[in-house]
């Protein structure tokens, strides 16, 4: 791999999609639907949210028109790439009754070879975190692994941050530094519209050869770096992670958990939108005659009562215990369990919480109360 970077003209972006599709990839990426930018199949550059941006705050998301024709002039929306790698509903296997025994019916969970278009740095980190969860260690999730191995990743560096972003605090962005095949920085400068392209893998190099690309000049690279640095200055949220694990473990009985429980709806939206949350439940269903059965896996959440149900009742019956479980797992016990934080600072749980509960705010409240009581000592 050389460190060489390339320039692709804005008008040639379609050729990048074409090259990937000719290689047999299903191209998926951001598109406008139902008042938000979601991830779905995109065959043409016209499917991208051209000239749109998103305005985000706690419990609030609005699309706005930009005054340019940027293809990637927004941040992350309600969907994440986990919907492709770790689908919300998945049939695991079926069985049919066969006399006194039963036979397992072959289940072909074939998935397309996806090319992800427009993966942000925080999202690359989220995929890496899910890789650790699903494909590291003794128990491998074959469904995740099969999908993951085939993916081609076109990352996009953020040149503007969103209202709930805090990747700088989590050291996960805004520049893509790992795990991409190609990484683009979109530059709009007066009438000029082009992408500075970094190549991450051999696969990426092969694709770039099929697209009109010229070598980038040091000046182009510098402009790209400056724009990314600007995004780093614009973070809508900030989270002080100093000694965060012990901070939370020390404060499991903090009154703030009772306070947040009065607001938390235990609706589970935060876990559903989080790109690292991975929990599922399985449902076994039979047909009416009792001759066929199927096991279906669905996204689940630590905010449901059933999630912690064991004989006799739910272990986490109170909203307080469920919210505390979620936050402390993301930011503390995840570190013990998987060796990284479970949060990449994408801000989705803040934007998509219907009542604007803010993970950074909750941690701040606990941290500040400690500082106050220390001062008082």
């Amino acid at each position, binding site marked *: 791999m050389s460190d060489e970077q390339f320039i692709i003209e804005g008008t040639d972006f379609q050729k990048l999609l074409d090259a990937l599709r000719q290689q047999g990839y299903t191209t998926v990426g951001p598109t406008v*639907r*139902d*008042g*938000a930018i*979601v991830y779905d199949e995109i065959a043409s550059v016209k499917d991208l949210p051209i000239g749109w941006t998103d305005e985000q705050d706690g*419990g*609030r*998301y*609005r699309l706005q028109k930009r005054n340019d024709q940027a293809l990637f002039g927004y941040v992350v*929306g*309600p*969907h994440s790439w986990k*919907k492709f790698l770790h689908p*919300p*509903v998945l049939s695991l296997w079926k069985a049919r009754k066969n006399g006194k025994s039963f036979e397992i019916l072959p289940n072909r969970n074939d998935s397309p070879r996806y090319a992800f278009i427009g993966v942000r740095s925080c999202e690359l980190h989220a995929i890496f975190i899910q890789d650790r969860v699903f494909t590291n260690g003794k128990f491998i999730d074959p469904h995740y692994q099969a999908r993951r191995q085939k993916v081609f990743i076109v990352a996009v560096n953020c040149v503007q941050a969103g209202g709930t972003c805090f990747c700088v605090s989590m050291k996960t962005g805004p520049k893509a530094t790992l795990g991409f095949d190609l990484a683009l920085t979109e530059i709009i400068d007066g009438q000029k519209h082009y992408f500075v392209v970094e190549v991450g893998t051999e696969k990426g190099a092969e694709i770039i050869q099929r697209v009109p690309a010229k070598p980038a000049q040091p000046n182009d690279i510098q402009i790209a770096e400056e724009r990314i640095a600007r995004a780093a200055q614009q973070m809508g949220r900030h989270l002080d992670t100093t000694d965060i694990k012990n901070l939370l473990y020390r404060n499991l009985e903090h009154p703030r958990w009772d306070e947040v429980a*009065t*607001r*938390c*709806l*235990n*609706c*589970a*939206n935060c876990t*559903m*939108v989080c790109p690292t949350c991975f929990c599922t439940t399985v*449902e*076994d*269903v*039979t*047909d*009416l*005659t*009792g001759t066929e059965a199927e096991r279906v896996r*669905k*996204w689940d*959440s630590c*905010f*449901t*009562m*059933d999630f912690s149900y064991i004989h006799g009742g739910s272990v986490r*019956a109170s*909203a307080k215990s469920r919210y505390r479980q979620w936050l402390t797992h993301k930011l503390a016990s995840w570190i013990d369990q998987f060796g990284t934080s479970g949060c990449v600072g994408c801000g989705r749980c803040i*934007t*998509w919480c*219907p*009542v*604007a509960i803010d993970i950074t705010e909750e941690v701040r409240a606990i941290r500040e109360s400690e500082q106050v009581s220390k001062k008082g000592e």
Partner: protein
Amino acid sequence: MPKAKRPKIAVWKFASCDGCQLSLLDCEDELLAVAGAVDIAYFLEASRAVVKGPYDISLVEGSITTPHDAERIQEVRRVSTFLITIGACATAGGIQALRNFKDVKEFISIVYAKPEYISTLDKSTPIADHVKVDFELRGCPVNKYQLIEVINAFLNRRKPNVPTYSVCVECKRRGTPCVMVARGTPCLGPVTQAGCGAICPAYHRGCYGCFGPKETPNTVSLSAWWRKLGVNDHDLVRAFRGFNAYAEPFRKESERYEQR
């Protein structure tokens, strides 16, 4: 299951619109399987043939609104091994439970030419207020797949897969962007039990709460947020007074705002 011992199912109607029974008729293909697996012994909506009880499963639609119904449900319970209530009327009193917040005698004198002919109770109440119920299936109307699932589970002696979490979970699984967050449209989804498949938000509408209160609903927090979205007290009362107005968490929340 040996042919001779096909389980007998009965479908009973109390105060209701018949919509939930129609969900059963709407099961077409699945119904063929139902008809093969079970003996639909009493289902006046579908057939006049009546097979005498006792019944293995009784599906009960509708709420109790008259003294006669209050007696009849006792009889249904006596002849049924499992009694399953279906729909908002049977599980919460239905839309007709709006009478519970007012004086029913006033309605009668306004609506009927000869009020003395009307024999009615002053409240519309769910079946479980009168007899022991083995399973309550929510919805206005019930979701036909959930209905099949419940019958299926009882026939196969397993637990029904009928989750009690929020509509939001279904919304997110199907990938619908939240209408409260993305449009500022008030939605009852966060306090409403899943089951419908999150239909309304997919059509850019807020949830109407057809499946009643979810497990551990935080109605107080949701109402406070609705107020911030610009909903006034009067409209909040009306939002909670839908098909599940008399389900306790919704009832308390509407009363809280009515009394303000």
